[in-house]
């Protein structure tokens, strides 16, 4: 049976904001979703059902049981097979809409590959779980002149900010640098409400749609914050355009700022040095990690050591960490982002 394009999108086309012309615009658009966890999977599902032409999904992680509470594209079979998230997502999405050209990238987005992976797309959608990658995306978006939509959620809070280079404010306009790890809760340490993921992804999707359809005047300026428990929305309007990159200074793209991850020679271990130079209160961090159910065989005034599956993460008070059990930078960065933050 032939499923006609027109039938599939008829309810969307009926919207005054979309129409036949709008649907054609969506079909000719390419979006890249960076990070396919909770937000990335809800957003990708919406984008594929809406009929964007091309969707690239980049993720460095594989599916685990603790993801299923909120990461809607994955199931128990994916967990058993330990499928990479981007691959599992694309397989699922391909059953939903074969008209969309889907591309799974199993990799860590970093300054070395950011240009190659984002080039040629109309919009960058944030599904990442850390500020390090977002600061890189913020610069790449400006350099490539490609809009991006920041979105994040932790606990019962979700935030969204549409960013259009040379027109709006950017992430750095509101946050001069990534917050230090000890004041930056992650979904692993603070938990996350399943519904707040959908609230944030829904707002992100609508802003993306406005951008792709060319409704620029209707894009919400500034930062939108959603308290998913109290049902409250707060907005901070930030006047654009931003002046952060006037002298083409891209510290994250150039590697002058940002987290450094290096393989430790002959040790099957990776060392991570965070961009923040602030000292981490280890006692507090240890309590947070214990609350996640982590085993901390060693904790003293100098370091905390924890076991995560086959890996051992040792965190020093300067924020430096050694992750043993892998020589893979992406795995080490993933564990650091999940448990320590950023």
């Amino acid at each position: 049976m032939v499923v006609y394009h027109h039938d599939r999108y008829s309810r969307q086309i009926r919207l005054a904001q979309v129409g036949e012309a709008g649907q054609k615009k969506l079909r000719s658009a390419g979006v890249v979703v960076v990070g396919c966890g909770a937000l990335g999977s809800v957003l990708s599902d919406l984008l594929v059902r809406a009929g964007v032409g091309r969707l690239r999904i980049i993720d460095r992680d594989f599916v685990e049981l603790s993801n299923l509470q909120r990461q809607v594209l994955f199931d128990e079979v994916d967990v058993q097979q330990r499928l990479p998230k981007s691959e599992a997502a694309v397989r699922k999405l391909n059953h939903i809409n074969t008209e969309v050209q889907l591309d799974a990238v199993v990799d860590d987005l970093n300054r070395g590959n950011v240009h190659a992976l984002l080039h040629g797309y109309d919009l960058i959608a944030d599904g990442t779980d850390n500020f390090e990658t977002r600061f890189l995306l913020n610069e790449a978006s400006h350099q490539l002149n490609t809009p991006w939509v920041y979105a994040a959620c932790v606990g019962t809070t979700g935030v969204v900010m549409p960013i259009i280079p040379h027109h709006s404010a950017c992430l750095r306009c509101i946050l001069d640098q990534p917050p230090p790890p000890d004041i930056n809760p992650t979904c692993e340490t603070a938990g996350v409400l399943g519904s707040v993921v959908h609230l944030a992804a829904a707002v992100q999707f609508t802003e993306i749609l406005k951008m792709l359809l060319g409704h620029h005047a209707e894009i919400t300026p500034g930062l939108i914050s959603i308290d998913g428990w109290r049902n409250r929305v707060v907005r901070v309007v930030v006047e654009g355009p931003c002046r952060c990159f006037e002298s083409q200074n891209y510290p994250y793209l150039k590697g002058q700022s940002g987290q450094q991850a290096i393989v430790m020679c002959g040790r099957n271990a990776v060392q991570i040095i965070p961009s923040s130079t602030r000292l981490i209160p280890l006692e507090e961090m240890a309590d947070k990690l214990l609350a996640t159910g982590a085993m901390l065989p060693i904790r003293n005034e100098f370091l905390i050591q924890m076991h995560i599956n086959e890996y051992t993460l040792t965190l020093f008070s300067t924020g430096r960490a050694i992750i043993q059990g892998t020589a893979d930078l992406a795995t080490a960065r993933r564990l650091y982002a999940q448990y320590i933050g950023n």
Partner: protein
Amino acid sequence: MKIMLNGEERTLNGEWSLTRLMEELQLPPQRVAVEVNRQLVTRACFGQTLLHEGDQVEIVTLVGGG
């Protein structure tokens, strides 16, 4: 004095800077965006920004998970 904080009225006594307000609310200044009367205030200015009667203050905490 009375201010509007994220759409709700709040009474403060004495002199209040944004830094003091952050402390009172137990919010980490490194990951908030603050707007006073629809003007963004950068973190470097929290200490010298004093609140006045009727000020409209919006505070958003940025999060990093996804």
